């Protein structure tokens, strides 16, 4: 398998160089998306399927889509003014990279988390350790992470980012959207439910759902009125609201912020995750489609 790892690593580095040096914006974004998929593959090799799912859906898929939108709107890359810093910068960067590789490879973490997770997993209410960490042991991180999504939504709203107006793609795309959207809903539900015992969870499910919604929007099948955008904004905000209310509610019940009541942990976790899935899907969708219809170009 070492040969596969080496080939994968080489492919990853090649894609990164290509994504950061190609002069054609679309080619560079395409290289970035391939990079995301290869990286997801490498994370399967590193025994992190939860992360691989999220990277493929969010890192490669949605980020790539955002980059494509921006590449279209920003226009072609302007030729840079003659700068001669490239060679010294490359030397410094490769020195730094070499140093970091050496430092990271020589450090080996003492096993502190693994035994703690193993000992606490039965009390967490779920059997997938990653979900247990995300929604129980370190749920406060996750709550703040949802807050980051909300603030990004607020900033995009403030900027009045231009709304994506779907061009007519012809009726050949209709069957695609009509099949993909329901499947994505099913898949999101499956990932959400599966997350408590196997790879999956709110983020992966939310990203898949957002993908299905975007297929509908791009095929022109979804309503795009001002009221719909406003509803989506409220839905995007509601995930954090539910999480915060659950945090304070659990404190009222058990005396500890985000300390779920005994033996009811799974109910709390799945309820929070369900709210997060919807809200993440709405947020990611809105971040891609934008808010305001503006006349410029």
């Amino acid at each position: 398998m070492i040969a596969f790892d080496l080939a994968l690593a080489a492919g990853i580095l090649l894609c990164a160089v290509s994504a950061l040096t190609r002069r054609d914006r679309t080619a560079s974004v395409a290289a970035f998306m391939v990079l995301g998929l290869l990286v997801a593959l490498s994370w399967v090799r590193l025994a992190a399927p939860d992360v691989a799912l999220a990277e493929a859906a969010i890192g490669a898929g949605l980020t790539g889509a955002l980059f494509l939108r921006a590449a279209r709107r920003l226009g072609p890359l302007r030729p840079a003014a003659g700068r001669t810093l490239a060679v010294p910068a490359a030397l410094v960067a490769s020195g730094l990279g070499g140093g970091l590789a050496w430092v990271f490879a020589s450090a080996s973490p003492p096993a502190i988390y693994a035994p703690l997770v193993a000992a606490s997993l039965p009390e967490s209410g779920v059997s997938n350790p990653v979900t247990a960490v995300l929604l129980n042991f370190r749920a406060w991180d996750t709550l703040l992470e949802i807050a980051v999504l909300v603030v990004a939504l607020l900033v995009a709203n403030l900027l009045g980012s231009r709304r994506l107006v779907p061009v007519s793609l012809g009726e050949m795309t209709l069957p695609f959207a009509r099949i993909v959207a329901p499947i994505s809903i099913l898949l999101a539900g499956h990932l959400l439910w599966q997350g408590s015992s196997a790879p999956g969870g709110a983020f992966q499910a939310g990203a898949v759902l957002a993908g299905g919604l975007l297929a509908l929007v791009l095929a022109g099948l979804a309503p795009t009125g001002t009221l719909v955008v406003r509803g989506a904004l409220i839905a995007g905000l509601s995930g954090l609201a539910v999480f915060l209310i659950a945090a304070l509610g659990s404190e009222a019940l058990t005396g500890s912020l985000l300390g779920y009541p005994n033996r009811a942990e799974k109910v709390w976790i799945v309820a929070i995750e369900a709210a997060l899935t919807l809200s993440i899907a709405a947020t990611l969708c809105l971040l891609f489609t934008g808010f305001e219809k503006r006349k410029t170009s």
Partner: protein
Amino acid sequence: MNETSLLVSLPLIAALVAAAWPRAATITGVIATLGNAGLAVVLAIRIGQGGAEAEALGGWAAPLGIGFAADGLAALMLVMTALVGLGVSVQVAGAPLPDAGRTGQRTAFWPLWLATLGAMNALFLSADLFNLYVTFEILGLAAVGLTALSGTRTALRAAFDYLSAGLAGSLLLLLGVALAYATAGRVDLAVVPELAGSHEGRVALGLIFAGLAVKAALFPLHFWMPAAHSSAAPEASALLSALVVKAAIYVALRLSIEGGAAVELLRLVLAVAGAGAMLWGAWHALRADRLKLLVAHSTVAQVGLIALAIGLTTGARDGTIWRAAALLMLSHALAKAAMFLAVGRITEELGHDRISGLNREELRPGAAEFAFAIAAISLIGLPPTAGFVGKWLLLDGLIDRGAWPWVALVLLGTVLSAAYLARVVSRCLRGGPHVAPGARRPAWRAGDAAALGLATAALALGLASALPLTLLDATLT
């Protein structure tokens, strides 16, 4: 319910309410800011009397879970944030609304400010390195929103540079946290002394400090800051300069207290960078032609002074220098917020902020000029302000150690800050023959009250500096 939980959750809930119902944004924002101030004061009183508190979120003890550490230093920072927030909220809520564009700006201001508040509170309480990274991301994004609030092209450009610099800083921090995990196997704050004991750990701490330096706009990584702070709306500049920059400084202070004597080299670098920032910021403030730019460059210089103080901390908890650093942070926050609000008012009255145009005949100096002068006194460090007490403690500690070169540097920085602030104060407080007999007085606005209130607080804290100092005694060991 516990004050700490409410301090971190109420601002976020209020931010959601303000975002979902723009019409109720102002009232929600004012109530939440008031409530937050009350909670912060209650918590500070309890900690001052009962000592530091630690809490394990969800009942999961560190290192697996995330802990809250509510000690004297954190409580002081919480109160500082609450006070500055109150002042700025008064200014925004009381500002007249000449046109519809301003209304939109004001409704967009509240959710962003409340998210900033929630993130700051979470950051001050957090005792976990990865959790700190996430709070920094909220803070960075919300601050960028505040920068872009005015919607002008310069503001957007500054917001973009700010966000990309901030993201680069966060990623450096995250790299450091990753290396901390790879070295020590855990990322709670108690790991810092352990990190300081190995080569890999010291590299990790170095990366974390580098990320913090970008976020605090520490020389020579300050390139993004003067533009961002001078092109934003005055209330946003006040928040960014007085509070958001402090978040990174606070974490640097916290880490160097936790790290003890073992992070000596890092602290030396910090002190040198601080000295550089002090001189560079002062030089540019002396040459600035616009008032807002002068105040923004003075932030670079003042942050440099605080970084210098943190760098010269010996790490021992009984030392005076870290107390000086904490007090300087507090006084700078109050004075700088007052200054930016005053500048906003002066600009509003004059229609420009050119320093050469502050000598005017047709307009008498008003409350804003007065507030600016008091804030300047505190920033320079003249008695009886909080800035004076901070600098006195710093010099006292340095003289005790016989660190004369550093004493000279601090004094030089003080002289320079007096020089650049005098450029403004000497012009705008001139009365007598310069003012024409029929000169009008500027109208009284909420912004004046806010600026005066904050400046007075900086003054009063100097007289009552025993309060923050006793609070600092309750810092976690």
